[in-house]
């Protein structure tokens, strides 16, 4: 049985640990050996086996003392934008090569306190800017379903590691779709909570009014377990974190009867089902939606008229915030500093041009431009006004329905390098995830079948503010009657 630990869910592993059928150290060793065996995926950027095994021994001691909490002793890995004391943090950038944080991010600390064992740090697009994980300074991550294709991004290492069974769960961050889209392209489950649900303290900032942490795992059940531990106010350290009581999302997954979703109204935005979406993705999404109907849900059309404009609005607002956030990388306090330089200004310029990759530099320049004199009103303020209209449109839709559903991405995973030369094509592929991010709403991706080339398709579920429990329950009920989330890529 030990060879199969990587096929178990977080919930199952916790049960085996609680029954003392396996130790946390044994699990850590099993998954670490799988990580070494799958180095070809390039999912991991840093390991520290000594620290991981020390955490596992501490979890075993808590188990031996009789403690039984839902995540105690279960391994996971963190996207490399969460700062960690035990591992270097790079955010996928040369700028932070070798950086060691003096503290743990709040999300990292909370999961460690819950007894989870950190196995390492996961590759991602540089500063989380990208949707293919091909913008990492440490090389692209491969999709375990087809190693010539991207796993999605920016949390591509997280998605690939979970899909390949290198960890049972991982953390991710989502600014414009960076949890949902890689979850969809890699065939796993992921949830971006309401903005502010998880503390941003210790998350390397990209666009602060959009960034949000969330769990990525096989199933909604596993995501619920992780989110219950990750979420919660952090008022002294993140003034934008929601000061709401912690919730047990696992306790709210169940629903009774043969039609557990009876009465649930699912809104389908007509803009999500148009010509822009490829036929294989639409077919899988529609088949999945028919399952929701069988479970008792009703489907209706809703209107999100500004969906297309979410792309320019996002690609003004996010770079504007990034240009401000990334000004901290100046070669003085941490990170890279150019070797040959003249005066202070020359040092800044050479350091930043050497340390940042091309896409990050472009976004910094776009952000600088839209915030500059004479352009602020036409670009930045106009984008913020459209952001308001998008948020209002969602509220009009939620007056008619309880949950919104559609595709996560307009196609299955594309070939590595295919969109590198044409960043705009990659931006356009973010169309179904950006509006949710701009509004600050919770959204998730649920495995919903396979499209062209046998590649995974994700169904997106969007909830109203604070309705993560409803999303997770809806997804969980679907996963009781479907097995897409249990499919595994064939090992090479």
């Amino acid at each position, binding site marked *: 049985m030990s060879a199969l630990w990587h096929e178990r869910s977080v919930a199952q592993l916790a049960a085996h640990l609680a029954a003392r059928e396996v130790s946390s150290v044994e699990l850590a060793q099993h998954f670490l050996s799988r990580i070494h065996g799958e180095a070809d995926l390039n999912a991991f950027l840093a390991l520290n086996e000594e620290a991981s095994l020390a955490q596992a021994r501490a979890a075993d001691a808590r188990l031996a003392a009789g403690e039984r909490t839902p995540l105690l002793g279960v391994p996971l890995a963190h996207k490399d934008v969460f700062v960690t004391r035990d591992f270097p943090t790079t955010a996928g950038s040369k700028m932070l090569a070798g950086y060691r944080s003096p503290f743990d991010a709040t999300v990292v600390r909370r999961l460690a306190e819950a007894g989870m064992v950190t196995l390492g740090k996961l590759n991602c697009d540089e500063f989380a800017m990208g949707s293919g994980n091909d913008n990492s300074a440490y090389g692209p991550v491969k999709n375990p379903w087809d190693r010539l294709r991207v796993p999605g991004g920016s949390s591509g290492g997280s998605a690939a590691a979970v899909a390949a069974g290198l960890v049972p769960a991982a953390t991710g961050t989502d600014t414009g779709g960076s949890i949902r889209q890689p979850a969809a392209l890699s065939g796993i489950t992921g949830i971006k909570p309401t903005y502010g649900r998880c503390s941003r303290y210790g998350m390397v900032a990209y666009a602060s009014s959009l960034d949000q942490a969330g769990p990525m795992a096989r199933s909604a059940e596993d995501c619920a377990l992780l989110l219950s531990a990750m979420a919660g106010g952090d008022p002294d350290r993140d003034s934008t974190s929601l000061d709401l009581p912690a919730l047990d999302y696992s306790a709210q997954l169940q629903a009774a009867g043969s039609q557990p979703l009876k009465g649930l109204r699912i809104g389908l935005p007509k803009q999500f089902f148009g010509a822009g979406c490829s036929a294989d993705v639409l077919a899988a999404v529609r088949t999945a939606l028919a399952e929701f109907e069988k479970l008792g849900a009703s489907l209706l059309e809703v209107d999100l008229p500004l969906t297309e404009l979410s792309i*320019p*609005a996002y690609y003004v607002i996010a770079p504007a915030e990034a240009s401000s956030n990334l000004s901290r990388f100046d070669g*003085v306090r941490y990170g890279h500093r150019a070797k040959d330089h003249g005066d202070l200004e020359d040092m800044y310029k050479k350091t930043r041009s050497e340390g940042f990759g091309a896409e990050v530099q472009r976004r*910094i320049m776009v952000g600088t431009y839209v915030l500059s004199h004479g352009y602020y009103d036409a670009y930045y303020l106009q984008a913020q006004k459209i952001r308001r209209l998008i948020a209002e449109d969602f509220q009009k839709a939620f007056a008619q329905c309880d949950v919104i559903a559609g595709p996560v991405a307009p196609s299955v995973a594309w070939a590595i390098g295919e969109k590198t030369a044409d960043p705009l094509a990659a931006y356009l592929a973010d169309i179904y995830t950006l509006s949710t991010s701009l509004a*600050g709403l919770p959204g998730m991706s649920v495995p919903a079948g396979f499209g062209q080339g046998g590649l995974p398709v994700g169904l997106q579920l969007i909830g109203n503010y604070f309705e993560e429990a409803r999303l997770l329950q809806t997804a969980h009920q679907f996963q009781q009657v479907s097995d897409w989330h249990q499919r595994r890529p064939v090992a090479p």
Partner: protein
Amino acid sequence: MQRTGSKPLLYKPFQLRLRRHLRSNEEGTAHFRFHVFDPTMALTPQDIARVAHLARLELPPQETQRTLDRINGLFQLVEQMAAVPTAGVQPLAHPAAVTGQIALRLRDDVASEPNQREASQVSAPAVERGLFLVPKVIE
């Protein structure tokens, strides 16, 4: 104790300075003029150079054209926003404004973190006696 409430965005002396500047701009006596804005105009290589300088980036000459093309590609998309009627719409800067969690929290003004100077400077490129070293600023 948590305090809530809002503070003025700009301190008064700065507000006055800004107002004076705006007035002199109208009169044409300001140190710098606001750019004449034409949203249909694509960016020029000069714009790219100016923006790169503002962002403290050094763009190699061979990269300027490629960067310009890509940024102009994005701005063709961005220009579409101009067609959306937004008169009277309040800009939404932050989702907190719609989730009802708008009040900015201020924590008590007490030190809550231990002194971690050494740990914080472990990753600094150049440090001496607890100070960050930079190239000479004043001759």
